[in-house]
């Protein structure tokens, strides 16, 4: 790969993959928990929780990046606390890019998982109960396996959306080569330089190839999940 891609290109590619991977799988348990909450329970304020989860879907990503900067900046309420008590810093770091991606792609995951949870026959859970299965037992051995197609769909959609994330990342964690410069940000950076169109084109082609490979793998994975269910 090094022979085809320049060091800067492979750096941007690997960073994109790493950030999306951490964002999607880091958010997955929370997405599952919220999907379960929305699919299986009734509580006051459910509509509000549902709405809040979907806010990133309609809010401009730049606005999300800005809000994250306010909250997680080293002088922000959360950022200051995390830095001083735990030594964790999000701004200008790839972990910040992952956090931004996770928030932006969260609704995709919750929606897909919730849909598949709602399609599971509730009677199966009752049957498992009468056969001696407690709450966690049912969650791991009945609900989770049956929700796998939805979980896979959620991962795929969120990963795809995360790979293309630009506005929130550049606003929150800037465009630092090797740290936060993902593929879209690298394309943007190339376009800022005179004569950078060829480089932008190469990076765009890499993005297209990545998308093709990814969608194929995703389709195969979903097919397998469907067949297993």
């Amino acid at each position, binding site marked *: 790969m090094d022979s085809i891609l320049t060091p800067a290109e492979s750096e941007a590619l690997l960073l994109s993959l790493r950030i999306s991977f951490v964002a999607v799988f880091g958010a997955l348990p929370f997405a599952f928990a919220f999907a379960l909450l929305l699919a299986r329970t009734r509580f006051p304020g459910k509509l509000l929780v549902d709405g809040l989860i979907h806010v990133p879907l309609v809010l401009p990503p730049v606005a999300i990046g800005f809000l994250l900067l306010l909250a997680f900046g080293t002088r922000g309420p959360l950022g200051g606390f995390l830095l001083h008590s735990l030594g964790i810093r999000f701004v200008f770091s790839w972990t910040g890019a992952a956090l931004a991606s996770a928030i932006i792609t969260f609704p995709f995951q919750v929606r897909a998982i919730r849909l598949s949870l709602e399609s599971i*026959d509730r*009677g199966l859970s009752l*049957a498992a109960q009468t056969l001696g299965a407690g709450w966690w037992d049912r969650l791991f051995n009945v609900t989770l396996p049956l929700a796998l197609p939805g979980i896979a769909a959620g991962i795929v959609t969120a990963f795809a959306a995360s790979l293309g994330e630009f506005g929130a990342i550049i606003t929150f964690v800037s465009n630092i080569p090797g740290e936060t410069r993902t593929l879209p940000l690298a394309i943007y950076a190339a376009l800022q330089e005179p004569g950078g169109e060829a480089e932008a084109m190469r990076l765009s082609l890499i993005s297209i190839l990545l998308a093709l490979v990814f969608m194929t793998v995703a389709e195969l994975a979903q097919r397998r999940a469907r067949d297993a269910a």
Partner: protein
Amino acid sequence: MSVEIALRHEFPGFALNVAFALPQQGVTALFGVSGAGKTTIVNAIAGTFRPREGRIVVNGRVVLDTGAGIFVPPAARRAGYVFQDARLFPHMSVKDNLLFGWRRAPVKAPSAEIDHAIALLGLGALLERRPRHLSGGEKGRVALGRALLSSPDILLLDEPLASLDAQRRAEILPYLENLRDEAKLPMLLVSHALDEVARLAHDIVVVKDGRVAAQGSVFDVLTDLDLSAIAGAPPVGAVIAATVAAQRDDGLTALDFDGGTLFVTRLKQPVGARLRVRVRAEEIMLALEEPHGISANNVLAARVVAIGGGAHADVQLACGATRLIARITQASSARLGLTPGKPVFAIVKSVTVDAL
């Protein structure tokens, strides 16, 4: 009594208030029309429905006592529940479905029991299959086996045959009979089909509008002329307990019952075997004098006990200590001048013999 049930609960427009008991083993039918409250009662025993007031004791263990604040959650109740729609886990093989409850039972049945249940329910060839590749009858049998292997204190069967067509029903009924004869535990069979009840159950609890309208042995309740009034179903006939008395040279088997002898085409059961004989009400003709020169093998001397009103005359008969029921027309009843106490001869055209 091994299972005691007392429940009270008010739904909008419907009140449930029942109390009954089940014997140590054998099938008790919970009979009634749709909406009578049958499934709610079963759910309360399983713990998936929590009544406002109630007390349920299964096998000496109090699983619900609202007065004492006892509510054993469904996962700890050890109630084997066979749902009408089977509810097999679609992501597991038949084998994993069967073992789901077994693996979670506090006291596991010995593994020989697994093989026995698989043989009893004819599941040997299905073990590696997924539920979606099973027929309706096969699904029902797997659901039975799964509940049975969870080492339950009670088996709850919620219309396990209702969603099946006649052919599948006929396929699964013998397995239910095997289960009834072999499983040493109380079984509650929810049903709205009297023929099913007559074939499988020893006792019957008739539920109507959330209350127990009648209860007793099928031998008594099914020949009750009030059954249509209390259960919304006309009597289908009598169930008689009989014993094989002799295998005769003319190809018939003689069955003794409390009130006489019935002759049926040769049975394979040995002399002394106990059987259940069903006589449908339409299969009995009545005569005032003993008929001769007829093809029917069975003519029983009986006495009229009561005559029902309505489109048909359902005539309740006493034949010794056994109750029979004959369905004739009101015109025939008038022509014969039937009145309670009158001696008659019951000509039995055909009978159905089941395992007791």
